[in-house]
C-alpha cells in the first residue's frame, strides 16, 4: 500500500499540491483524475523523489519511501522519452539494470516484455526508427522491465489507438492481479471508469474525492430515477420524499430519499397512468467528477 499524507508543494507563490492524502491499495488499479495543472504530475514526482514536498509524508508498506524502495517503482512520465539512438532491447536491459536488476534477469525480462508487446522483431532497432505506436509500447516496457512493485503511469493511454488501449488495459490488469498497486492519471474518464477499482480526484492541488468508484456513486447523493408515465408526470411534484430534477410531459427525472419513497412513487405512478419505464440512473464518473470539482472550483 502506498500512502500519501498531507503532501504539500508550492512553486513560488503557486501551491501546486495542497494537503494531498490518499492511498493506493495493492492489487488494484487506481485512477488519478483532474484537470491540467491540478497537480497530478507533481504528486507523482513527489512520490518518485524527483520533486521534494514542502510538507507531508509518503509511505510504502508502512515505512517512509526511501531510495531503495523508489528504485522498485515503475514510472511512465507524461513526456515520453527513451534514448532515440539506442536499440530497444539494449535500452530496456540498461534501464532494468539501473533499477538494480541483475544482468541475466534484466535480459530475460526485456525479452519477455518485447515478445508480449509484439516488439520482438524490432528488438535490435533504435527507438527513433520505430513507429509512434511502437515507441509507446517500448515506453510501457521501460516502465515494467524491472518488475516493479508499484506502478505510476502518467497519462499512459494518451496517443494510443483503441486496440493498443485494450492491450495495455489487459496488461495493467495482469500486473495489478499480481498484487502491484497501480496509479495512473488520465483525462479519459470513461476509460478510468471501465478500468479502475478506485479513483482519486484532484482539483487545484486538493483531493476532492477519493475511494472506490461504487462508493463514490452512492456517497452523498440520493438515488436518481428516470420515470416515464403516460399521459403526464406532473403529479410527481407532490409526492413526499421525492425531489424533482426535471419534468417534461410524461418523462420525469427524480431523486428519492430512500427505498420507501421509491415504492410510494411506483404505487402512485400505477394509479396515474401507464408506467413504461422506471429505472435508477447511475451517475457516470464524468458526472461525479464534475460535481466533485465544480463546488471546489475556486478555493482561492
Amino acid at each position, binding site marked *: 500500500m502506498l500512502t500519501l499524507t498531507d503532501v504539500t508543494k508550492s512553486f513560488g507563490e503557486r501551491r501546486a499540491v495542497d494537503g494531498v492524502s490518499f492511498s493506493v491499495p495493492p492489487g488494484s488499479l487506481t485512477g488519478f483524475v483532474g484537470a491540467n495543472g491540478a497537480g497530478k504530475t507533481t504528486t507523482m514526482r513527489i512520490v*518518485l*523523489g*524527483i*520533486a*521534494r514536498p514542502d510538507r507531508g509524508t509518503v509511505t510504502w508498506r508502512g515505512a517512509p519511501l526511501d*531510495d531503495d524502495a*523508489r*528504485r522498485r*517503482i515503475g*514510472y511512465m*512520465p507524461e*513526456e*515520453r*522519452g*527513451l*534514448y*532515440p*539512438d*539506442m536499440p530497444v532491447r539494449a535500452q530496456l536491459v*540498461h*534501464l532494468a*539494470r*539501473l*533499477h*538494480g536488476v541483475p544482468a541475466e534477469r534484466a535480459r530475460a525480462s526485456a525479452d519477455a516484455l518485447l515478445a508480449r508487446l509484439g516488439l520482438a522483431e524490432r528488438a535490435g532497432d533504435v527507438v527513433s526508427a520505430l513507429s509512434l505506436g511502437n515507441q509507446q509500447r517500448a515506453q510501457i516496457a*521501460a*516502465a515494467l522491465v*524491472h518488475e516493479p512493485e508499484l506502478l505510476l503511469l502518467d497519462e499512459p493511454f494518451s496517443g494510443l489507438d483503441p486496440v493498443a488501449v485494450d492491450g495495455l488495459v489487459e496488461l495493467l490488469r495482469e500486473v495489478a492481479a499480481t498484487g502491484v498497486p497501480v496509479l495512473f492519471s488520465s483525462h479519459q474518464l470513461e476509460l478510468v471508469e471501465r478500468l479502475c477499482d478506485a479513483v482519486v480526484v484532484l482539483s487545484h492541488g486538493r483531493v476532492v474525492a477519493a475511494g472506490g468508484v461504487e462508493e463514490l456513486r452512492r456517497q452523498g447523493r440520493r438515488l436518481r430515477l428516470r420515470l416515464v408515465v403516460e399521459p403526464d408526470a406532473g403529479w410527481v411534484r407532490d409526492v413526499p420524499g421525492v425531489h424533482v430534477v426535471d419534468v417534461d410531459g410524461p418523462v420525469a427525472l427524480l431523486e428519492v430519499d430512500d427505498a420507501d419513497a421509491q415504492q410510494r412513487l411506483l404505487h402512485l405512478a400505477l394509479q396515474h397512468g401507464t408506467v413504461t419505464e422506471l429505472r435508477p440512473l447511475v451517475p457516470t464518473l464524468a458526472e461525479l467528477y464534475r460535481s466533485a470539482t465544480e463546488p471546489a472550483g475556486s478555493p482561492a
Partner: protein
Amino acid sequence: MSTWSAVRLVAGREVGEKLRSRAFVLGTLLFLVLVAASVALPALLSDDGPEEYDVAALSPAALTLVEAVPDDEVDLTPREVDPAQVEVLLEDEDVDAAVDVTPGGLVVTGYDEVPDDLRDALAGTAQLGGLTSALADAGAGPDEVQRLLSPVDVTERLVDDPGVDPAVVPVLGIAFGLLFFFVVYQFGFAIAQAVVKEKESRVVEVLVSAVPVRTLLYGKVLGLGALALGQVVLLAVVALAGASLTGESELVSLLARNSAWFLLFFALGFALLACLWAAAGAFASRTEDLQSTTMPLQLLVIVPFFASVYVTSEPVRTVLSYLPLTSPLVMPARLVEGDAQAWEAVVAAVLLLAAAAVTVRVGERLYRSSLLRTRGTTSVAQAWAGSAEAPR
C-alpha cells in the same frame, strides 16, 4: 544496488554509445594516423640516394678502410687529418665523422651524432675478407686482422652529447598542450552533449526516477573521461612507437619519462572542468542551445591554451604552471624542458586537485538544479538559487 555500480552502468552506456558512433571511431583513427605520420614522415622522406660524408681517417688502416667502402650506399670522402685537430674539425663540420682502427675494433666519432648508414657501411666493409692483407700491409698486426674478420665491434664516441635535439623540446611542450586542448575540448563538449540529449529526449525523467541525479553526472564524466584518457594513451603509444621506429631513442626516453606526468595533469585538468561541462549541458534544453550555454567553458579551455603558447616570459610562465587552469598545459612543458623539479609538479598537481574538488561540487549543484528544467535555457544564477528544489 550501490551508487558505484549505478555509476559504472551509466559510464558503460556512454562508452558503448561513443564506440558505436562511426564519427567518433573514424575521428580517433584519423587523429592516430596524423600523429603517426608526423612522427614517421620526416625520417622516411629524407632517404634520397647515397649520403655524402667527409670522413677523417686517424690512422693508415682507417684510411684504407674508408677508401674501400663502396659508394652505393654512402659516398665517403676520406681526409687525412691531425688527430689532435679532430674535435675542432667535427665541431666546425669540416668532417662528419672520424674513424680509427684499434685493437678493440672500430671507433667512430661524431660531433653530436654518428649517422647510422655511415657506421653500418664502415662496419660492413671492415669485415670483407679481401681487406685482410691490405690491412696487414698497412701495418695492422695479426691479432687486429683476426678481430676485423669476425663481426666488428663498433664503438661510437661523440664529442658533445646533446641528448634530444634542442629544437624538439619546445615543440614537444606545445604538442602536449595541443593534445590536452583538443581532447579536453572534444570530450568536454561530448559531456555537455550527452547531458542535453537526455534532456531533449526526455529520457532523463525515467533515469532520475531510477537513480540519484549525481549518479548520472558522475557516470557520464567518468565514462567519457576514461575514453578521453584512453585516446590520449593511444596517441602517446603511437607517438612513442613512431619515434622509436625512426631511431629517436633519446626522444623516446624523454617522452616516456614525462608521459606519466602528462597523463596525471591531463586527468586532473579534465576533472577540473568536466562537471562544469555537464552543468553547461544541463542549462540547455535543446542541442541548439549548447553553443551559447557552453561558451564560458569554451573560453576556459581556449584562453589558457593560447596563454600557454604565447606567454614565454618569466616569471609569468612559472606562475602559470601553478595556476589550475593553465598548469595542465604549462607544467608538463616545463618538466620536459628540464625547467621544473618534481616537487614543483607535485605542488601544482595538489593545487589542481583542490581546485577540481571545488568545481566538481559546484558543477554537481548546478547540474542537479537545472537538469529537470525543460523550458528554455537556465542561467547560472537560477540554477544556483534553485538547488533547494532539486531532486536528490
